[in-house]
């Protein structure tokens, strides 16, 4: 009897352990993305950042500050060479202001595919602000260690009828901190187009935020763009009229 009880307790424990572990692993791909978005998806912020563009042997450093809300963003470059160059995103539209020409240009159509300021980011990359789960059907591919951190490897395939730039994306999400550590972006043909890697993460206002990341355009050799977040302020006060063409030209 006593022996049976022990066996029973052992069996129950085993069931509980396997059951619990089942609950733990039963987290869905969508939940992982949502957890990640809670960390990384910024609705409104004021940031200062540095962009280091490496192309072959050339290296260019650009600094910028940006103000954004849920629909709009105004970015101004502050390094001497590009000082005064500004981008304004309003909903689905993007404008650029060149201080030398004192001219505003709307960036649309095929121009959105071009490189932004010579970096590995396209203008289109700047425009993407929708939450990923609305655009992609995610599934967990595997669990894998990346730079010593255990990650979920997720695959997102574009949902039918949704307009997305990249047909497939594979994302490595830190299992503990739910922050994306690596992302691969693929064309419909299966060709790898871009890879972004996060090199440094910091906890700011109880959110894990990527501080330093690198984007590589895989269609071009020897090119990468490092992005360093120098400061960030969440939910700043935004004066009226900031996201207007007038303020772009001022």
């Amino acid at each position, binding site marked *: 009897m006593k022996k049976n009880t022990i066996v029973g307790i052992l069996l129950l424990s085993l069931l509980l352990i396997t059951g619990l572990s089942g609950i733990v692993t039963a987290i869905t791909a969508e939940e992982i993305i949502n957890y990640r978005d809670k960390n990384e998806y910024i609705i409104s912020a004021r940031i200062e950042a540095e962009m280091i563009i490496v192309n072959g042997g050339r290296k260019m450093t650009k600094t910028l500050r940006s103000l954004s809300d849920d629909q709009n963003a105004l970015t101004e470059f502050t390094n001497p060479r590009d000082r005064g160059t500004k981008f304004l995103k309003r909903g689905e539209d993007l404008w650029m202001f060149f201080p030398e020409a004192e001219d505003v240009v709307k960036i649309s159509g095929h121009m959105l595919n071009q490189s932004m300021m010579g970096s590995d980011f396209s203008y289109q990359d700047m425009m993407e602000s929708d939450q990923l789960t609305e655009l992609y059907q995610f599934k967990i591919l595997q669990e894998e260690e990346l730079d010593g951190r255990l990650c979920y490897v997720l695959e997102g395939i574009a949902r039918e009828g949704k307009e997305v730039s990249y047909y497939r994306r594979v994302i490595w999400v830190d299992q503990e901190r739910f922050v994306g550590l690596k992302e691969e972006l693929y064309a419909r043909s299966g060709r790898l187009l871009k890879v972004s890697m996060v090199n440094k993460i910091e906890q700011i206002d109880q959110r894990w935020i990527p501080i330093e990341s690198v984007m590589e355009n895989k269609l071009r*050799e020897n090119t990468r763009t490092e992005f360093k977040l120098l400061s960030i302020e969440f939910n700043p006060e935004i004066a009226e009229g900031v996201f207007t063409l007038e303020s772009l030209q001022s």
Partner: protein
Amino acid sequence: MFIAKLGFRNVFRHKKRTLITAIIISLAILIYLVTDSIMIGIAELSYQNIINLETGHLQVMTEQYWEEKDKNPLDQLLVKDGQLAEEIKALANLQGMSPLLRFNANLNNGVEELPVLGLGIEPNTYHQVFTTGDYFVKGSFFKAGEEKAVLGQSLAELMDLKVGDYLTLLVRSRERTFNTIDVEISGLISTPNPNVNNNIVFVPLDLAQQSLNLGDEVSQLVIRFRGDQGEMPTAARQLTEKVAKINPDLRAYPWQASAQSILAMMEASQIENIIILGIIILIAAVGIINTTILSAIERTEEIGMMKALGLKEGEIILAFMIEALGIGVIGSLIGCFLGGVSVAFFNRFGIALSAFGMGEIDIGIPIIDKIYGGWNPGAFLFIALFGVVVAVLASILPARWAAGKDPVKAIYHR
């Protein structure tokens, strides 16, 4: 009769002066004729290059696509179904018809990226409409279904590509999703149209449709007729009536509709011609006025004598006008002769654009290398008459001044 004789004799009294004035007039006429010939040559060559390498004679597409065509959209396309093809094949004098799919792409060589126009073509029918195949520098066109591409030699040099190399076209499908077309270069072309050489990458239509997720849709059907292309606007109207019955959005557009910038340039050249005419008036008038005044001063005593003998002022003016007419005729004839020789030279041997310092740069016209002058007999006739009339009119005022002199003072030269 006496006045006419007197006038003509005066023409040859000072042969050197007459010749110099006539040469001044003839140079002005020469400039006009050469400019006119070169403008005609530019227009003719531009039209040929547009028809042979870009538009064919007629283009069938949806009205909505036409309005947006500069953006190369992937919506508002058309499907070449049986009925539409039959309707076009039934056209009189048809040489060929071919579908085209135009799309924006980034040409990537693994190091650099450049925005280009991707052109999906059907190799079997493309050569029936366009002469692009005549301009291969190396290699040849691909076959349908092959993963190959053709591009201009200048574009290939810019991107450091050669035949046998692979290139990637980064495109966006209608759903705005990135896709890549990886192709081997099967040939390089160097056409007389810089737009084609510098901006276009040709790929098989089926490959482009598949990569852009477009099924059987194409941007347009291009049509070429045998022989003369003069009446295209009428042919376009007639074809529009037919194709609109199949699909109310479809329209046929003549090549002229795609050559608006060149046509506008030709209109601008008319203004240029008017300016040159103005200069000719000025040059001829100055020459004639100068000659007439000199003659009058020289012949003051003679004029006085003629008036004393009973010649009327009008008759003296007429004598000077006839003298100017003679100079005008000589100037016009020399000018037309020199113009004819120059135009014949430009027509036969052409003139390199580099002579104007614009051999390698895009000057907004679909021509590179050489311009050949065109013949315009009407211009010769017009400018010859114009030269004579200006000479005659310019002589009136100084002749009146000479004829108005008092005969007694004139004889004593006071």
